[in-house]
């Protein structure tokens, strides 16, 4: 019951808090409100793993480097400059002379403390543990940060760890249990978090002392919604000013609203099929119940040939994607993107796929379904997808249709996300599964998800594999690119790895979904995506969009008369909201009780 009133009070506070802001006179704080359909998992950057949390932390804290707004290549952030020893094992970063938002100077000590904390405290590894795995030691003197590595690592300049203020965080006892809910937060980035109401909003004020200069708006708010439909309505009504990561149907629902800009640009994600090609554990013992036919590269190639990617893009993604003729790195990353050409390129050709299967001895039975060459099993595969994802459902319908023409029966298996992760990442109880990855400017992490070492251990501990792939050639190339500090040469090696994934087909890339967003042009005057020419607003790999965002100044349209209306409306809104919240909170309380 107490929970109920707390929730109710919070909603009323929220409504009261935001309503007058809309009705204020010119000279009022410039506020930009961003919607999200995910809630914060933690305000503690050592623990937060969700995209929404890492975005907010990106706006709050500085990093060693930041992807350049134009080229996405690493550029200086808190580290002004850096040098590498000839063997590539010692990196020295010169930390910028600047202050934390509480006035304390920022030194290399802070960075060293952050990395050392992660290296020594397992609790601090939750969010970005792999980033320090290769660190041998980190030390600081003045503004100089020295990192010694165990082995060369080319992705050093794409370090995802926010630098934390030592003088505040060293007082924290158990970092794994710390929720970091102290406001205002002490930060070094463009914004300072000043308030967080769980599952409702996070408010960030501009950091006046930010070394690049304060942002052009005064306040940035992140408003959380339960589901995308509610968030879209929120954007249409003007409760929020920007909403990212839209599904194609939601994006199309924004059509025709004169105040909303539909943002449709290339994305940083690849959608692909993960094929159980004979999953093994990290000690090379078979695991799971994958269909034996999928071990045959010819079958995988036939499946690849039977997929009309352009049709998938048109029908499943409403045309808002790019068919993938490459692999898991999307074309946004021009330096690393690879696509098949000429002979190697696999284009939709069911007849050819059938020929391959006929030649390999998979004979069609009376029911039109093929059997293994030794007649032991029919070619009946399961396709694992998530529950409640219309797009994946539709995708499954198309694959089922095409594979049927190959004489392969496909049945769809819908799993909730934790079970899905378990069956496709650890226990290998799948044949074909949907998969995808949002790729960072440095593709090392996504490439690593196909390494032998990422396979689960014999005891079933997940290692984060995306394919159970283990291929000597791929491993070797991976080690090579790690040591290659020349960006062009490294990109060449990475392209060979992508080619290997394409031809061996443990994963089959389907398409690269576009980045679909919407923002209100009556509220946001300008916003720069990352990368600048054709990129992402929310969820991108840098703080640029929300650092450069400019709000519309409201002294033009609003007249004095409308204020009363707005205030009355806000009053009614508060009452309605309170009522709705009352029922929602009560209902949610009920559900929570059920679970206990």
């Amino acid at each position: 019951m107490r929970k109920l009133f707390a929730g109710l009070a919070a909603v009323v506070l929220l409504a009261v808090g935001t309503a007058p802001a809309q009705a204020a006179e010119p000279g009022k704080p410039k506020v930009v409100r961003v919607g999200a359909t995910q809630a914060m998992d933690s305000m503690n950057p050592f623990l937060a793993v969700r995209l929404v949390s890492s975005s907010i932390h990106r706006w709050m804290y500085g990093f060693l480097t930041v992807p350049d707004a134009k080229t996405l290549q690493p550029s200086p952030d808190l580290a002004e400059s850096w040098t590498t020893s000839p063997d590539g094992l010692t990196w020295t970063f010169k930390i910028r002379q600047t202050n934390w938002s509480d006035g304390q100077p920022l030194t290399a000590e802070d960075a060293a403390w952050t990395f050392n904390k992660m290296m020594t405290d397992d609790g601090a590894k939750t969010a970005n543990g792999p980033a320090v795995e290769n660190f041998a030691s980190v030390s600081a003197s003045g503004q100089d940060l020295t990192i010694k590595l165990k082995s060369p690592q080319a992705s050093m300049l794409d370090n995802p760890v926010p630098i934390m203020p030592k003088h505040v965080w060293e007082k924290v006892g158990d970092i794994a249990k710390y929720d970091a809910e102290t406001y205002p937060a002490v930060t070094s980035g463009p914004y300072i978090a000043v308030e967080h109401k769980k599952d409702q909003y996070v408010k960030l004020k501009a950091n006046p002392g930010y070394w690049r200069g304060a942002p052009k708006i005064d306040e940035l708010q992140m408003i959380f919604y339960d589901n995308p439909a509610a968030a879209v309505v929120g954007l249409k009504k003007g409760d929020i000013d920007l909403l990212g990561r839209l599904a194609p149907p939601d994006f199309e629902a924004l059509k025709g609203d004169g105040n909303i800009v539909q943002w449709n640009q290339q994305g940083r994600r690849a959608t692909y099929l993960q094929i159980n090609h004979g999953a093994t554990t990290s000690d090379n013992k078979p695991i799971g119940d994958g269909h034996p036919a999928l071990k045959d590269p010819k079958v995988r190639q036939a499946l690849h040939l039977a997929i009309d990617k352009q049709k998938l893009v048109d029908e499943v993604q409403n045309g808002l994607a790019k068919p993938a003729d490459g692999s898991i790195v999307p074309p946004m990353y021009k330096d690393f993107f690879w696509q098949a050409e000429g002979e190697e390129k696999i284009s939709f050709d069911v007849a050819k796929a059938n020929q391959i299967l006929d030649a390999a001895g998979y004979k069609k039975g009376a029911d039109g379904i093929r059997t293994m060459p030794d007649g032991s099993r029919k070619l009946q595969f399961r396709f694992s997808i998530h529950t409640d994802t219309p797009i994946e459902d539709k995708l499954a319908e198309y694959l089922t249709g095409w594979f049927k023409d190959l004489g392969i029966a496909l049945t769809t298996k819908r799993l909730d996300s934790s079970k899905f992760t378990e069956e496709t990442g650890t226990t290998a109880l799948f044949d074909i599964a949907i998969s995808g990855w949002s790729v960072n400017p440095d593709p090392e992490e996504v490439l690593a998800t196909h390494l032998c070492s990422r396979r689960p251990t014999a005891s079933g501990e997940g290692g984060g594999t995306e394919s159970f792939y283990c291929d000597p050639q791929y491993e070797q190339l991976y080690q090579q690119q790690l040591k290659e500090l020349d960006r062009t040469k490294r990109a060449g090696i990475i392209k060979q790895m992508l080619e290997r994934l394409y031809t061996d087909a443990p994963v089959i890339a389907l398409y690269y979904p576009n980045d679909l967003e919407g923002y209100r042009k009556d509220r946001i005057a300008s916003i720069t995506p990352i990368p600048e020419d054709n990129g992402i607003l929310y969820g991108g790999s840098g703080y640029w969009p929300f650092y450069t965002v400019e709000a519309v100044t409201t002294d033009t349209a609003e007249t004095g008369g409308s204020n009363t209306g707005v205030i009355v409306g806000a009053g009614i809104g508060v009452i309605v909201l309170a009522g709705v919240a009352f029922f929602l909170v009560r209902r949610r309380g009920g559900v929570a009780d059920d679970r206990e």
Partner: protein
Amino acid sequence: MSVTWTRRKRSLLRFWADYRGHKAGVVGLAVLLVAVLLALIAPLFIDAGVTNVVRGTGEKLAPPSWDAPLGTDESGRSVLLMVWWGSRTSLLIGFLAALLSMVIGTVLGIVAGHFRGWIGAVVLRVTDWFLVLPSLVTALVLAAILGGSTTTIIVAIGVTSWPSTARLIRAQTLAVEARPYIERSTALGGGHWHITTRHVLPNVAPLLLASTTLEVASAIVTESTLAFLGISANKTSWGTMLRGSYDWGAATSGAWWYILVPGLCIVTVVMAFTLCGRALETVLNPRLRSAR
């Protein structure tokens, strides 16, 4: 032999004469026969290919036209053909789930009514427990655990909807067993099996028929609900069509045909089953009959 046959024939004719008196029941029966007939003959005209997205060549969400008399869905498939083919899944699941629920309900109901001791008490408590379980939630959880196939959906609906049948059958069993001829039969050496199958079962059968007919209606609705909530048998049914219309924004794009057609199909068939069931109940239930 011939005597029993004449008797059965006569009682059947009497039943039909009674049933005919219920206009609504006759209408319901007619609708049902047409629906079942259509579902059965569907394979003579079309095949599962009409639900295959790869074969959907029409325009997306196109309004009714000569090519697609009831419009098309988000992948250009004809809504008319999909509804026709989907009726097979919906009706099959409806009938089989009702049958399963009837079998479980009858066995447990008779056991609970016949064995008055602790066995009856235990069975009754179990029935009560299932009765208070929110059946939709239970079916959802069951279907989610068992995975999506026609069988699992049937099982999920069947095992959650039997308690009311069991309750009904138990009450009727108690009433039947209170009659003197049961006592006479026991005295003549009739065992549990003889009494339950030869005396109780035939007496509860009419009631069971009526109850099952109503059960089919609710099973079809449950199947559609489950499909709408995302738990389906991977086959086109009326429920999955409604789900599709919701997922692909038929309402916002004004594609009324996509929502209305499967919805009306569900309403019509469920209504028909209900009308039949009510009519049967009035004809067969001795208590309702005497009240008339």
